[in-house]
């Protein structure tokens, strides 16, 4: 795996070609996604209740987003009251710099990390390494990827693309006293032993956040391995890092969202650990002396400004859309080339990175709607993909405010002209009839090679008569037989 060409050196089409033609990857993802789909559906057994819960989840997230600026202010005030320091970051660079400043202030050399997709988004590890601070990923999946020098391919199961055998090799090469074994428990124990040392020696713990409760100033973090619990309690300093959209209004909003999140993600009624962090250590009760929250915008305010696109920010990162996506299932996460892959990635990444860098993503979908069908907060992902396609092929009018960076990134004169002609043809019945007639008359001339289509299929041939003509003939026959009957009865 490690001799692969770095992902960023390949275009989307090349990445697709590489990963589609990797049979091991195809099988691994199909099996893993089937497993996750089954887990989800076996935990949501009552469809009526599920739909009620999804409606509730969507309305909680919509309500929070409709008050986002106010809730963020309230959150900041509450957190400060609780003794948690709040830092705002407009960009990845700012967020990374903030983390570095805190670390340097404490003379930190090592950092133990719970799982944080936002830190993947800002490429925090790479940044810190350059500055002489060594981060260690403590989530098992992330730990594997750090050793393998790879990126997550899934937002909940980051190393889902790695086989047991590959992990065994990796551990054998990288861990002290770890012999090659395909015993999963033994592998986990080996990593656990190594990570335990890191937890005790790390100067700083850094984690992501699943929800922030404005009303109480609490940071909520769910996980199954206990690395989040340790990273937020053992080191002297805890830095939490997340996107501004993760805020919810009330503590009462939390239980339904947690239920939706864990059941949608892994089919669990609740995760093994639910951490609610409300303040730094008080007296002797343990916990970090300092807690910091870094709140990242990094383009999120762009979809926030548009009523339709804003729904993108409702996401609670359960990854059910990925697990159910027929495209993701066949490509895996790396082909997307973005931190967040799959359907949610294809509607979020264009806002974070601009449409020029992500112009293929909204189009690389059959709009089958499996994603929206399972989305716990009812994000209309296909509608948003289509909207992004629209923004990608149109140019801004004069004085029009952009709704995304990179309007018209996919615009070409040729395609615009083609759809113009198409529209003329199909909105003019007379033209269409001529077209249909010639298509059926010239059916013998149908090209047997249509680029792309004929690599997998034979080409369809126009019928000898269109439905329009068949109906006309049929009506004529009906009339004739009616006339005949009428004639016969006279």
């Amino acid at each position, binding site marked *: 795996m490690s001799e692969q060409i770095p992902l960023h050196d390949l275009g989307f089409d090349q990445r697709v070609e590489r990963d589609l033609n990797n049979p091991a990857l195809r099988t691994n993802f199909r099996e893993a996604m089937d497993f996750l789909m089954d887990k989800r559906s076996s935990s949501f057994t009552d469809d009526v209740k599920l739909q009620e819960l999804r409606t509730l989840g969507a309305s909680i997230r919509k309500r929070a987003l409709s008050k986002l600026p106010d809730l963020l202010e309230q959150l900041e005030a509450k957190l400060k009251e609780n003794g948690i320091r709040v830092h705002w970051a407009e960009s990845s660079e700012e967020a990374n710099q903030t983390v570095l400043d805190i670390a340097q202030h404490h003379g930190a050399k090592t950092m133990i990390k719970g799982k944080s997709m936002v830190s993947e988004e800002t490429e925090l590890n790479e940044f810190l390494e350059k500055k002489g601070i060594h981060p260690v990923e403590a989530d098992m999946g992330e730990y594997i990827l750090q050793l393998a020098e790879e990126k997550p391919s899934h937002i909940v199961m980051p190393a889902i693309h790695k086989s047991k055998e590959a992990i065994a090799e990796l551990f054998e090469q990288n861990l002290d006293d770890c012999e090659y074994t395909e015993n999963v428990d033994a592998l986990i124990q080996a990593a656990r032993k190594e990570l335990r040392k890191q937890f005790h020696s790390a100067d700083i713990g850094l984690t992501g956040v699943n929800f922030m409760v404005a009303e109480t100033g609490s940071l909520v973090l769910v996980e199954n391995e206990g690395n989040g619990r340790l990273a937020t309690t053992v080191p002297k300093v805890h830095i939490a890092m997340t996107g501004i959209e993760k805020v919810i209004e009330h503590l009462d909003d939390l239980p339904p969202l947690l239920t939706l999140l864990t059941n949608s993600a892994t089919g669990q009624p609740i995760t093994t650990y639910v951490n609610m962090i409300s303040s730094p250590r008080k007296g002797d009760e343990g916990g970090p002396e300092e807690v910091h929250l870094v709140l990242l915008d990094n383009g999120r305010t762009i979809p926030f400004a548009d009523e339709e696109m804003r729904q993108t920010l409702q996401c609670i990162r359960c990854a059910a859309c990925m697990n159910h996506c027929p495209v993701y299932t066949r490509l895996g996460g790396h082909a997307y080339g973005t931190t967040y892959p799959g359907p949610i990635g294809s509607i979020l990444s264009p806002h974070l990175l601009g449409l020029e860098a992500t112009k293929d993503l909204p189009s690389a979908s059959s709009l089958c709607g499996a994603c929206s069908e399972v989305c716990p907060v009812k994000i209309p992902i296909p509608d948003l993909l289509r909207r992004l396609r629209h923004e990608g092929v149109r140019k801004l009018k004069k004085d029009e405010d952009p709704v995304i960076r990179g309007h018209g990134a996919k615009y070409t004169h040729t395609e615009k002209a083609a759809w113009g002609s198409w529209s003329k043809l199909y909105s003019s*019945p007379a033209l269409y009839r001529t077209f*249909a007639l010639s298509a059926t008359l010239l059916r013998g001339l149908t090209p047997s090679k249509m680029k792309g289509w004929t690599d997998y299929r034979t080409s369809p041939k126009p019928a000898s008569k269109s439905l329009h003509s068949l109906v006309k003939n049929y009506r004529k026959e009906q009339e004739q037989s009616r006339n005949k009957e009428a004639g016969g009865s006279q």
Partner: protein
Amino acid sequence: MSDLFVNAMPDQTGSDEPRKCLAPEPRAYPEKPEKVYLYGTCLVDLLQPEAGLDALKLLEQEGIDVVFPDKQTCCGQPAYTSGYDDEARAVARMQMEVMAENYPVVVLSGSCGGMMHHHYPSMFKGLPEENHAKKFADRVFEFTEFLVHVLNYQPEDKGEPQTVAVHTSCSARREMNVHKTGWQLIDSLKNVARKVHDHEFECCGFGGSFCVRYPDISGAMVNDKVKAITDIEPDRLISADYACLMNINGALDFQGHELKGTHIASYLWERTSMQSEGESNV
């Protein structure tokens, strides 16, 4: 819902009501009408016109006066899903114009039905035609939906025993919520056994322009679909969407399979109009 969540009921959901996306509310159905428009769809028109004629005959047999507007063309979906809204609207306007009377519009595809029923209202949102589009959308019905829910159609199966694999289009399933009506119709044929195939709920990979823009992804999807279908060795493959059939049939043929999918309108006509032995051919 658990009582635990009562306190979380929204007091304000924000201004932006979600656009009706998927799993729509169950809709109300009209009484059996005298007249309907039959919307053949552009693919059936040019590639599988027999399906359209069979649908027309079947509806007439049920006592419906079928109007087939000669000026119908395409629902506009190809341009719409490619992001060309103006171009799609021009075509959509024409369809609404040629089917202006207050008759139900029976559409031979869940995908085009979904476009008209589900997307026309949002496509014309904020434009003068908005209301018109909504009213039009309300009288659009997918073919199997119309047969089951409006006509309460009970086919009399005259065919030999057969096993059938059904492919339901994603739009029928998720936009129109009518996948069950297709199954229901097949299940109501007494000599037909419906067999379920692996990952039946999954997209066949057509996706309109997707299949030519990303041919290899689409190809991987249709290959898996063909394998799942041929693995259960059905006598017939039936779908209510010709677009999916064009895709699946193309791949079946490419791989040398004899199986060829049939539109459900043709299949129902075939099963019900068959004349049993000894019956006079009048």
